[in-house]
């Protein structure tokens, strides 16, 4: 999956100003950037929920345009887990399964995140962390070649976080292309094969973690990111 020179503005306010990005198979790409730098908009463009003014999104070399069929190859985890509140977890899973009409594997994921006890509860009764687990379940239950994850670790407890990391690495080993946004630096350091730093709608940096540290001679990734943000404020 590839993004070429993507532009998006809401009214006169430009959010994405020419973003180029490639999602490689068997790799985790982490998108970093301060709040409001366009991470979520970028992801929504990839899914066709937001339509860019200029530029293209290619999947297998074909521009997706306003098509929809390519979405059957994507597992998507939205930033804010918003579900129809009256449904039970089980019903929600069954519904998405029915609509996508693809083979799904839920048992292993349910066991991995200890969701068995919640399957018969309506979504409105779930805590933030549990909702996030349901969110993960829905994103990963289909064997999709591409995963797009918007802040996947929000609200997860340490155990779930470790399991989630294992899940991501396992999917990567299967050859999946994974894109995720996050603010958690050590997660990026541990997992990301490529880091993309978005700043005010442009790609400020692209490369691996080591290159980002070398960029401004920082000891840690945290420091490197802080330095970039400091620098921008002074300019």
């Amino acid at each position, binding site marked *: 999956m590839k993004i070429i020179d993507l532009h998006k503005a809401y009214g006169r306010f430009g959010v994405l100003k020419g973003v180029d990005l490639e999602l490689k198979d068997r790799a985790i790409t982490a998108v970093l950037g301060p709040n409001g730098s366009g991470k979520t908009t970028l992801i929504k463009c990839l899914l066709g929920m937001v339509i860019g003014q200029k530029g293209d999104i290619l999947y297998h070399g074909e521009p997706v345009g306003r098509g929809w069929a390519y*979405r059957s190859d994507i597992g998507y985890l939205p930033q804010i887990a918003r579900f129809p509140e009256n449904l039970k977890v089980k019903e929600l899973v069954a519904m*998405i399964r029915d609509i996508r009409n693809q083979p799904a594997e839920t048992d292993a994921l349910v066991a991995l995140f200890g969701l068995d006890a919640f399957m018969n509860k309506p979504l409105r009764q779930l805590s933030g962390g549990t909702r996030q687990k349901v969110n993960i379940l829905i994103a990963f239950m289909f064997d999709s070649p591409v995963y797009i994850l918007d802040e996947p670790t929000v609200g997860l407890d340490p155990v779930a976080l470790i399991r989630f990391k294992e899940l991501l690495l396992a999917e990567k080993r299967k050859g999946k292309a994974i894109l995720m946004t996050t603010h958690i630096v050590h997660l990026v350091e541990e997992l990301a094969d490529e880091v993309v730093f978005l700043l005010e709608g442009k790609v400020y940096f692209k490369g691996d973690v080591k290159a980002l540290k070398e960029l401004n001679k920082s000891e840690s990734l945290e420091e490197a990111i802080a330095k970039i943000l400091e620098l921008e404020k002074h300019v």
Partner: protein
Amino acid sequence: MFKVFKYSFFDLVRSRWIYAYLLFFLLVTTGLVWSGSDLSRALISLMNILLILCPLIGTLFGALYYYNSREFIDLLLALPLPRRSIFLGKYLGLAISLSASFLLGIGLPMVVFGVFSSGLLTNFLTLLATGIFLTFIFTAIAFVVALKSENPIRGFGMAIFIWLFLSVIYDGILLVVMMYFESYPLDRFALIASLFNPVDLSRILIMLQLDISALMGYTGAVFRKFLGTGTGIAVAYSALACWIVVPVLLFIRCAGRKDF
């Protein structure tokens, strides 16, 4: 599209509001038939109720349902479904469940009280058809309005204003215009003006069917004079059908261009 429709419909059928709507029509129809001696009178009273209520409930429910199912819509948008099927499915789910409530609410008591043997069956069916038309029209209008405005309060305001405009204000303006231009021939103008208001159209349609000259009003009389009863009914039905198709196309277009 069918799957989206299926889930929306069954979600709505479980909601309390649909039953409240059904219960309301059950009570009103039973009350009307019971208190009045004659079925044709009850039909006229029902007409007056449905001309106000079907558009109002369609508008309110349409906007309410759209804003309430934003989460569901967001979820569906990320799935491999064309936007057209998502919104058409939601729309049909709502319009059909509302129509079913209306149909059962009016139909059950009427059947029990013997509408089949009364010779008023065609009139009764016309009444049902107009109610269903109005429901489909106003839920579609509400979807257009709700898709256009992110802010629910503004969306509701707009939707209610459109209902008020078509149910009350439009007639008022027409009346003022006719009084003002009294000395000119206004037949054609009145005829065309009534085509642009689905509530008026429905009223005319029922009047033509019931053939009550006293209640027909000016536009109804013009309709009959120019088109005759048969053609008049046909024209009214086609115009009502247009009133469904145009807003539906409009909200599909809006949905296709919107950022979520």
